[in-house]
């Protein structure tokens, strides 16, 4: 006969229930816990006798007990001192042979113990990290990586945990440095990249880990490191932007409040409303708070010259390299080297001769080579190094016999090189190349025109007289337009400052008096709720700085950039339209004595720029003035030229920091041949409706969808129109038979309802 179970006995039989009761009243259930803990210990001992057998046989399995104990260990810290170290030992010794479910449970239990602060992060990560490198199981690796990442994120959530970060960073560093030939370094690369993307690690130490990765001797690790430098910052920005827009507009406070007015009032709903309000407020605050300033990895690099040289010598130059890279990987490395050379204006002469053998149209991915070459040119490269390269490109790519796309790629790359180092061009070659603007091929035409307009700006005397154009010819005649000599550096100034000064004079604003006002105004305008400072305090990262010259300088630069964060942007956009403003203003004040003009200019600039600090309000005005000046100064006849010039200037400012891609080199050659049917279809399909692609729908349909997406209902009119005919019938029948009194009452009621705003009134909205 079946024995009847007592109620309590039944309940005792499941662990989750016991766990629940334990948490409520740990003291009373201590005995039960001890029983279970002993059970865990004996099962563990059994397990250690034969770790390979699965523990599926009994009702209560070891993993259930591990789960139970890890959940309740914090209630009995004295009894369970050995628990964490037991788990670590189990994982360490038997991770390869453990049943996968039990293994995952052990990892989860350790993380749980960390969350309950039984063990600390360093201890946890010291267990998980070596395991990640050792284990042959793919699943476990994925799990461990995810856990490590999430633990680092939580550890850095409230404030940056410098100690932990430094510990893990040095582990990553050691991993790569200790054995450069192993592929294990990939984990360090992966971790660093992920944390960089999430802006948890954004210091020089993380960059130095990646630097070591790029210099290691395993192809995968090398490409991982190189890819980080080429795309890590972009990825970080994208992630940040995504986070901003992620849950934007999810919460509609008005709607929620309205619903709360209508629905039944419960504690839960009130709580929900409160949390939603708090969330909205938090988001608002976050939006208003100053943007975190981050330096790109390329700028945080210590000793870029050494890095570029080493990269080049290890991976590109030797005939017998330590690591075999395929063409694609070599291109990536080349891209990084050239980017470094261009960005930091490094001197790496063997790089240019390395390019020569790749500059033929038949070379696979030649456009990437061309882009890298252009990228590595800068104003401090001796022209006689670049000249043979330019000549070779011209000979190989640009001829009447070559295909349109080949010629346009060649011309574009020549233009990009010359934009960075105009002295690399000889006049005969230039005049020859400029002739191609008469070509029938659209791409070649545009490329040649680009070259022409570039040289009108930077070296008009190389062009034939009739190709120079009016501006350049006049500039040459007055002598203000001269080709910059090798190594010449222009004096720095703030674009459009004279416009601002003029405006101030016109407005009659006293510079001393309004300075204070400028700050105050700015506060009012930006309605930020923090204190009146426009600056952003950049917290120092707590990392030690070696006192070397370059490092020092970088630090200074960083501080300056941090201080003038709003200024910085303004300057950047200022760089976009130098050509549009300076010639115009200079022409207005044109005098025949250049020296006197120069003096006057100098004094004018010095007055504003040297006597006071520009307030944020000033800068905003400056920006506005500059843009309006650019528009109004343009007469209809010259409009197009101005626009072109500004575009060229934009292109010139782009050279400074952004990478040059192969797509830019191949340029408009896409238009030089007729698109095939497939290409046309692809173009039409490109981008779905939401992304602003082609949308072949009527305006009404689009409006309706918009309204629906906003969560708005139909209008009364529409409801009336859509109402079922049979439902309106009764009223229509009666309508004619109403008495006058009834009619009056109805009309009165209608007016009253209108006043009130509907049947219930517009309360609560």
């Amino acid at each position, binding site marked *: 006969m079946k*024995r009847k179970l007592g109620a309590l*006995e039944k309940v*005792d039989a499941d662990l989750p229930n016991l766990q629940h009761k334990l948490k409520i009243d740990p003291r*009373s259930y201590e*005995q039960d816990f001890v029983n279970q803990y002993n*059970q865990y210990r004996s099962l563990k001992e059994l397990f250690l*006798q034969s770790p390979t057998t699965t523990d599926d*046989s*009994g009702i209560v399995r070891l993993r259930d007990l591990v789960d139970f104990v890890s959940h309740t260990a914090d209630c009995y810290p004295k009894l369970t001192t050995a628990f964490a170290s037991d788990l670590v030992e189990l994982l360490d010794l038997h991770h390869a042979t453990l049943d996968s479910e039990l293994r995952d449970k052990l990892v989860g239990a350790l993380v749980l113990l960390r969350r309950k602060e039984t063990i600390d992060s360093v201890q946890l990560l010291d267990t998980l990290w070596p395991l990640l490198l050792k284990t042959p199981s793919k699943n476990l690796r994925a799990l461990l990586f995810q856990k490590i990442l999430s633990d680092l994120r939580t550890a850095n959530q409230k404030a940056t945990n410098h100690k932990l970060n430094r510990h893990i960073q040095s582990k990553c560093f050691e991993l790569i440095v200790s054995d450069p030939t192993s592929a294990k370094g990939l984990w360090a690369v992966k971790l660093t990249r992920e944390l960089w993307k999430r802006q948890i690690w954004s210091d020089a130490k993380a960059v130095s880990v990646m630097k070591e990765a790029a210099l290691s001797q395993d192809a995968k690790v090398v490409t991982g490191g190189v890819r980080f430098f080429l795309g890590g910052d972009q990825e970080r920005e994208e992630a940040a932007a995504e986070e901003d827009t992620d849950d934007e507009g999810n919460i509609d406070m008005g709607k929620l409040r309205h619903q709360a007015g209508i629905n039944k009032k419960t504690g839960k709903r009130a709580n929900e409303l409160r949390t939603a309000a708090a969330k909205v407020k938090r988001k608002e605050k976050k939006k208003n708070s100053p943007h975190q300033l981050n330096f790109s990895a390329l700028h945080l690099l210590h000793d870029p010259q050494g890095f570029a040289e080493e990269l080049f010598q290890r991976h590109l130059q030797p005939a017998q390299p330590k690591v075999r890279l395929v063409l694609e990987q070599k291109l990536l490395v080349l891209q990084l080297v050239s980017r470094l050379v261009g960005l930091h204006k490094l001197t790496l002469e063997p790089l240019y001769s390395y390019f020569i053998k790749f500059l033929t149209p038949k070379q696979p991915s030649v456009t990437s080579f061309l882009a890298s070459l252009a990228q590595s040119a800068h104003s401090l490269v001796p022209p006689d190094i670049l000249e043979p390269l330019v000549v070779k490109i011209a000979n190989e790519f640009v001829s009447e016999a070559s295909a349109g796309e080949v010629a346009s790629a060649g011309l574009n790359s020549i233009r990009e090189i010359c934009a960075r180092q105009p002295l690399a061009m000889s006049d005969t070659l230039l005049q020859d190349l400029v002739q191609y603007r008469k070509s029938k091929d659209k791409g070649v035409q545009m490329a040649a025109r680009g070259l022409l307009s570039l040289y009108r700006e930077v070296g008009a005397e190389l062009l034939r007289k009739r190709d120079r154009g009016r501006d350049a010819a006049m500039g040459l005649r007055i002598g203000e337009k001269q080709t910059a000599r090798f190594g010449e550096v222009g004096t720095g100034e703030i674009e459009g400052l004279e416009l601002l000064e003029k405006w101030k004079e016109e407005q009659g604003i006293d510079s001393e008096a309004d300075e204070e006002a400028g700050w105050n105004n700015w506060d009012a305008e930006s309605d930020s709720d923090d204190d009146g400072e426009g600056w952003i305090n950049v917290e120092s990262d707590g990392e030690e700085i070696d006192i070397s010259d370059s490092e020092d300088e970088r630090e200074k630069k960083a501080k300056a950039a941090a201080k003038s964060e709003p200024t910085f942007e303004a300057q950047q956009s200022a760089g976009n339209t130098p050509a549009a403003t300076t010639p115009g203003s200079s022409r207005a004040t044109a005098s025949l004595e250049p020296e006197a003009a120069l003096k006057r200019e100098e004094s004018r600039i010095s007055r504003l720029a040297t006597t006071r600090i520009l307030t944020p309000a000033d800068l905003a005005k400056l920006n506005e003035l500059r843009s309006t000046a650019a528009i109004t100064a343009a007469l209809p006849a010259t409009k197009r030229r101005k626009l072109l010039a500004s575009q060229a200037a934009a292109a010139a400012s782009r050279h400074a920091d952004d990478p040059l891609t192969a797509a830019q080199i*191949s340029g408009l050659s896409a238009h030089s041949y007729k698109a095939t049917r497939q290409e046309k279809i692809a173009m039409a399909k490109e981008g779905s409706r939401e992304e602003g692609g082609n949308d072949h729908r009527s305006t009404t349909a689009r409006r309706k969808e918009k309204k629906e997406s906003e969560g708005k209902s139909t209008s009364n009119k529409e409801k009336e129109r859509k109402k079922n005919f049979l439902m309106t019938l009764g009223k229509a029948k009666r309508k004619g038979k109403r008495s006058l009194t009834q009619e009056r009452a109805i009309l009165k009621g209608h007016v009253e309802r209108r006043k009130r705003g509907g049947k219930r009134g517009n309360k609560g909205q």
Partner: protein
Amino acid sequence: MGSSAKKKREKKSDFKKTKLKVGKARPKNTNATDTSFAAKSIVLKQQSLSESGRDPSTIFNHNLSLLASKADTQRRDALAWLTNAITAMNAAALPQPPSAILLKAQPLILDGTASVRSQLLKLLRILPVDQLGPLDQVLLYTRAGMSHLSTDIKLSSLDILDWLIEAQPESIVSCAGGWVKTLETFETLLSWNGAKGTTGSLTGDGKWSATKPTVSLGSSKLLVHQLNTLTAFLNAGLVRPERDDNLLAIQAAECWPLWHHQAHLMPTKSNPYGYLNLCGKKRDTESDMYEDPEERQEAFITSGMCRAFVQGVTEAKKEGGEVGRAAAGVAKALQLVVDVG
């Protein structure tokens, strides 16, 4: 006609040169092999189910391996088959030694199905007692079962322990961890460790706490069983083998001129000076081996369990009835220690 034009086109296409685009990667060769496939399933051949024509030892081994099967009916059937087979054969003719059978069968002590456990006990009872090999593993499983969450498993593992005590009393109490650990298990099971000073009194942080009653609300069957087994276990561990005075006299007469010559011979025990622990690690009293009744008694007293047991027994005796009677048995066994100590 149409087909010939088509054929012509096909033939032509063989010699057509593909146009290469500048800056693009070379297109894949036409004869490249696509290796991007994955097998979705692996097909096993039909398993052979016939038992005829195989020799009995193979079938025996097959059934032995079935003890680890996932299905509980299969495990039970395999146990039943083995029981029948062992009773049919004589001990010498078994295809596997009894120790190997025990090794395979012992995980089933923790089995979730009652029928499997009862069948297991039947199997164990017919195994030849003197060829079981080392017993510490079985004891480990038994202890795990005794502290199991499920009452049924607790009961059946007590049965197993009873069998063990009956079969090999000496090796059970003297194997590594067999003495102290088992006693500790009993202590926690009976909740006698509360007797160490905190029962119903103020705890460290000034709050009252009360221990739960040891008796579960259903019946006292488990408790009685536990007490009975404990009695047997204590008796096995503490009772000295009786000295045969006659035999001693004969031995002394045989080597007459020598007196106490054992003290000068090579010791018969392993690690005779182990108790001094001269150059070992810190002693793990729990999992040590205690080979003599004296040693066991010593361990029992020094670990403080003796006091806790005495106190617990006096409490349990007050309950009267079946429990009281069983507790009286334990008290009698404890008397062995108390007399000496």
